[in-house]
């Protein structure tokens, strides 16, 4: 396998019956970084991951690991490892034996195996659990063992299929940090699939957004989030998508007075919710419909002449507003899609 | 790949150990598994109950088989089959496939001989002591000596005197069973599965068609007796007093005299024009075509027809011995005396049996089933 370069997917498609799970996906995934594939359920992200793993054969397209075409190769001939949503630990083996599984498959000597298992368990902080059986471990512990098992074979690429989705929130956040740390320590290429935006933004060095089997955006995470290149990507993030008119270098929105008179091109504006600020004024075009508490911030849903906008509000400021208040939205930055 | 080889090795070892222990134990129990090559063996195929009905079957076996071994130094390997039909079928298979293991077959009856000749599984052989067998017997069986009769039995109605009177059976005719109460006491064997059944059917057909000139199916239509698949089954039910007349052999009364000292069970044949008509089931011994130990086989056939063996027949096979020089034991006075019987076998030719038996049995099934 090549050392540096890209994992290249070239026109990869797969359908099940009439449904196209993966539709002509072409990507260049960088080595030695964390790539996150973000998409809602049914977007084909799991299928894509399984194709990279070799568990599914694509109907069209090729997959390259660096210079090597691995399209026809079965999973055991690719230098990949995988962690699934359920830990899938072999119930008849204890944690040590589970972790050692891949090493023994390659016929490594007993002491080498022992050494490596200890290394992996230290990495995941599970040294004390090694002689326990899966049914004696909690969900989080099992997932750590699964991770250790996947890492101990020192793969070039680690594939993660929403491994944290079944865990509770605090555990999830904890493990996210762990994952990043492990990646930095080991330098293994991570391809992580998730539907959780927070997770995606936290982990990704490189973000790919998938919708209905198609790649709708990709690149540096913050850029993708702030300025998505397609409406579908915006939809994945849950940004506000607003009809607007480009009117002589000014963007005019439906709640503005110049909406009727302005003549210009009709566009769609993508406005992330933290890019709007609201101001209580008397002549305001919008009304607060709802105030919602999220964990670290508040959300105000305002109705502006029939258009609903989501606005992030600092929790400290939440108390200043009530439902029914008249407010004026000030848009900080937006992306324009023609 | 290590575990792959380990597993295959482990299983192979288990199999080998098992097989070796098996073969060793079998040998220890002194039953040789492999037939030795060479002329000092003769392989005999016969049916299970050959000579097995006497007071001491083990002794009889020793007389017949060990006796031959002692006399000639040739070892006898006997293979017994469920019945003579299976035996014949196996021999036919062997000859057809060219893998002949049998040398001698014992138990081909006068109906099977037709088939055996047709399939070409026997080689004609005339033993030196052929004259001990009556000419009429050979004529009735096979004049070409593909097989030689070694005994014969008379199909008879065996009845329980506690339920059926001697007077009725003295004047027995087939029509006696047209009486419903008589019909309900009768049990008969299925010609499709029992050689006794086939013989009885032929008996009845021959008497009706050749002697009386009537449609044989009438009898079955009118009587509709209980039919069971084997002689053993029929006889058991008879002994169990479920049925009181059973189609069996004329020597049965002698059997019950010897074993139970009882004259309760007697035998009767049908009488027409004051003549007792009887059908013989003749059993023969033959040389298998392509027998691996031909000379030994010939010696055995001669031995089997000799007085030494034939004198065992009456009390152990409960049939009349073919060897005319053998005196019947005293107890045979309770059996039907052959000299007073008119044998009807010769009224029907083997060709006719060969071509019509299938059809007759088909018609029989039809007649019996339509009720």
């Amino acid at each position, binding site marked *: 396998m090549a050392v540096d370069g890209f994992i290249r997917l070239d026109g990869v498609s797969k359908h099940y019956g009439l449904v196209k799970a993966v539709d002509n996906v072409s990507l260049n995934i960088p080595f030695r970084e964390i790539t996150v594939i973000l998409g809602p359920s049914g977007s084909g992200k799991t299928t894509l991951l399984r194709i990279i*793993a*070799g568990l599914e054969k694509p109907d069209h397209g090729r997959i390259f690991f660096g210079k090597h075409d691995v399209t026809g190769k*079965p*999973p*055991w001939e690719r230098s*990949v*490892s995988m962690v*699934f949503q359920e830990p*899938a630990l*072999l*119930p008849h083996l204890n944690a040590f034996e589970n972790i050692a*599984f*891949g090493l*023994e*498959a390659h016929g490594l000597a007993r002491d080498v195996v022992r050494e490596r298992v200890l290394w992996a368990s230290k990495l995941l902080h599970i040294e004390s659990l090694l002689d326990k059986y899966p049914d004696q471990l909690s969900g989080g512990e099992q997932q750590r063992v699964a991770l250790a*098992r996947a890492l101990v*074979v020192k793969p070039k690429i680690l594939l993660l299929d929403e491994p944290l989705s079944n865990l509770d929130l605090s555990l999830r956040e904890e493990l996210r940090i762990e994952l990043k740390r492990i990646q930095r320590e080991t330098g293994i290429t991570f391809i992580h699939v998730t539907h959780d935006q927070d997770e995606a933004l936290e982990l990704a060095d490189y973000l790919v957004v998938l919708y209905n089997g198609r790649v709708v955006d990709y690149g540096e995470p913050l850029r993708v989030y702030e300025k998505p290149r397609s409406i579908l990507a915006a939809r994945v993030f849950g940004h506000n998508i607003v009809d607007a008119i480009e009117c002589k270098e000014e963007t005019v929105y439906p709640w503005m007075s110049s909406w009727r008179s302005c003549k210009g091109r009709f566009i769609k504006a993508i406005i992330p919710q933290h890019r709007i600020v609201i101001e209580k004024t008397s002549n305001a075009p919008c009304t607060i419909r709802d105030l919602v508490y999220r964990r670290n911030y508040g959300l105000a849903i305002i109705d502006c002449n029939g258009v609903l906008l989501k606005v992030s509000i600092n929790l400290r400021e939440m108390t200043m507003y009530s439902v029914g208040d008249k407010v004026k939205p000030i848009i900080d930055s937006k992306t324009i899609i023609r | *790949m290590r575990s*792959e080889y380990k*597993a295959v090795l482990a*299983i192979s070892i288990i*199999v080998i150990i*098992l097989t070796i222990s*098996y073969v060793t134990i*079998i040998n220890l*129990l*002194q*039953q040789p*598994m492999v037939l030795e090559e060479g002329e000092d063996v003769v392989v005999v195929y016969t049916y*299970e*109950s050959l000579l097995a009905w006497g007071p001491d*079957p083990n002794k009889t*076996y020793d007389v017949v088989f060990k006796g031959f071994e002692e006399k000639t130094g040739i070892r006898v390997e*006997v*293979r*017994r089959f*469920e019945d003579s*039909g*299976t035996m014949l079928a196996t021999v036919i298979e062997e000859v057809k*496939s060219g*893998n002949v293991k049998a040398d001698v077959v014992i138990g081909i009856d006068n109906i099977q001989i037709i088939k055996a000749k047709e399939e070409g599984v026997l080689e004609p052989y005339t033993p030196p002591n052929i004259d001990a067998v009556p000419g009429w017997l050979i004529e009735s069986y096979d004049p070409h000596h593909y097989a030689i009769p070694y005994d014969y039995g008379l199909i008879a109605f065996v009845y329980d005197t506690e339920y059926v009177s001697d007077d009725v059976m003295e004047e027995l005719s087939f029509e006696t069973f047209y009486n419903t109460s008589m019909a309900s006491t009768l049990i008969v064997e*299925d010609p*499709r*599965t029992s*050689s006794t059944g*086939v013989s009885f059917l032929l008996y009845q057909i021959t008497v009706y068609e050749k002697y009386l000139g009537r449609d044989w199916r009438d009898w079955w239509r009118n009587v509709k007796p209980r039919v*069971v*698949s084997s002689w*053993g*089954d029929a006889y058991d039910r008879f*002994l*169990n007093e479920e049925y009181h007349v059973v189609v069996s052999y004329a020597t049965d009364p002698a059997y019950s005299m010897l074993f139970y000292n009882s004259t309760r069970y007697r035998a009767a044949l049908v009488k027409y024009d004051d003549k007792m008509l009887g059908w013989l089931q003749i059993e023969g011994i033959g040389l298998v075509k392509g027998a691996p130990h031909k000379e030994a086989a010939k010696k055995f056939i001669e031995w089997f027809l000799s007085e030494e063996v034939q004198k065992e027949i009456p009390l152990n096979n409960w049939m009349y011995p073919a060897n005319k020089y053998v005196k019947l034991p005293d107890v045979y006075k309770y059996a039907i005396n052959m000299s007073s019987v008119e044998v009807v076998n010769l009224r029907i030719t083997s060709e006719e049996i060969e071509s019509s*038996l*299938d059809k007759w*049995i*088909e018609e029989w*099934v039809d007649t*019996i*089933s339509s*009720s």
Partner: protein
Amino acid sequence: MNTRLLIVLAIVTLIVYLPVVYGLKDAFLYKNVFTLRNIVEVLSRKSIQNSLRFTFTQALISSIIATVAGSITAFSLLTIGFRKAWILRALSIIPFMAPPMVVVTGFTSLYGLHGVVSNIIPWTKVLGYGFWAIIAAHAFYNIPLSINFVYSSLVSIPREVVDTLHVFGFGRFMYVLRRVIVPYILPAVFSSFTLTFIYCFTSFAIPLTLGGVGCSTLEVYIYYYYKIMYKPGLAASIALIQYIILLSIVALFIYFHGRTFTAPIGYRHYRLSLRKSLKTILSIILVIVYIYLYAPLVAIVYQAFYNPYTKTYGLEGFYRVLQLGYDSGLGVSTGVVYVNTVYYALMTGLLAIILSTIIVYYGGRIVDTLYASLLAVSPLTLSLGLLRTYSWYIPSYFLIILAHTIAALPLTTRVLRIGFERVGKKYIEVAHVLGEKGLPLFLRVVYPLMKPSYLVALSLALVVSLGEFGATLFISTPDTMTLGVAIYSYRGVRDWAAAASAASILLLLTASILLLLSRRMERWL
């Protein structure tokens, strides 16, 4: 998949099917010429047409009765509770394995003219002879099938489903039954129905002995044309027709069996609350069915001690059967018979397990159907085929092992197939990604997760071998006789007590194996 192992599968299939082809080829030969006249002849005979109609009808009715009775009994097992049910389940298989000749004797002694039961309850006489006797005997044999199939499925209904209904106040039993339970167990019911149908269709000893002339199944005619009339062309033609007819039923069986629910590993069982009156009724049904199943077996054991000629009781039967020296009635030492029986059983167990593993691992639905269709081959034809194909090169004891294995394969492949599917793709995928494949994958991942199925398959193979009778009778020589054939030989020399004693020993062996292995298996569930 792996081409190397696909070749292995092909070879195995060839070894198993070549005898079938060789046995059936007579159907197309008349005086060594390829022709269809045998088949035409056979189909035009009225006796065969009637027989076909009869075979079908009795199979249908027997299957319906056996399936209904078995399903209700399976339900009754629920009232006992899961822990204790395993004993009854294991015990129910014993009647299934009892040698047919012996069962017939048992039936006759119970329901026949002088039967024990028919003397007390006169109407049961109809079960002693005739059409209904055949049905009753077939039901006896096959109720255990439905009991086991349906119970497995019944007990696999996800707990949450039952709990949900309870929570929502739909505790009413009939509702739960109709909406939940019946749809879940329907595939199991149908799969046991189709399997029972196949067994009843190919039944031979029972219709022959308990039925009259009009009650001849196709197997009886195969026997007749082959053994008595020696017209192998006709015999094989009937066997061929039977095979083709049953192929569709076999396909149905595979279909339903594949859709049967079985509990995943580590499943926790639900509790069903039943009204007391219902519980009582079910318990009574349970008792009656088990009495029905075991009465003939008890009759058999009773016969072992009873000499019908002298009308006395004694142990002569057992003495004869347990002395290990030469027995002229058998033509071989009894000791040899025991050694044979055990050896063949062990080898069959091994061979069946190995072959089934290969079949299940690399086959699919078509392969499954192919192997299950071995059930549709007449044992007579199969034995003939085996002799023709292999007797040149293989000692007869191995032929017997092969015949037993072929008899066991349909069952063991099903059991292992279900077990294999329960393992689930996930573990195999994990192993693949970690670099494990092929035989090591099987040994390290699949087999450990399938151990209970292997135990069941092994016990089935052993028990099938012990009870196999038809093919063994045909192929065996005195040297290679098994206990099952010995029973038949004892009957041939009219020693009923010895026959019953041998049968009792066989039943004891069967029961021990089933109970022992079931016990260990339950622990793993």
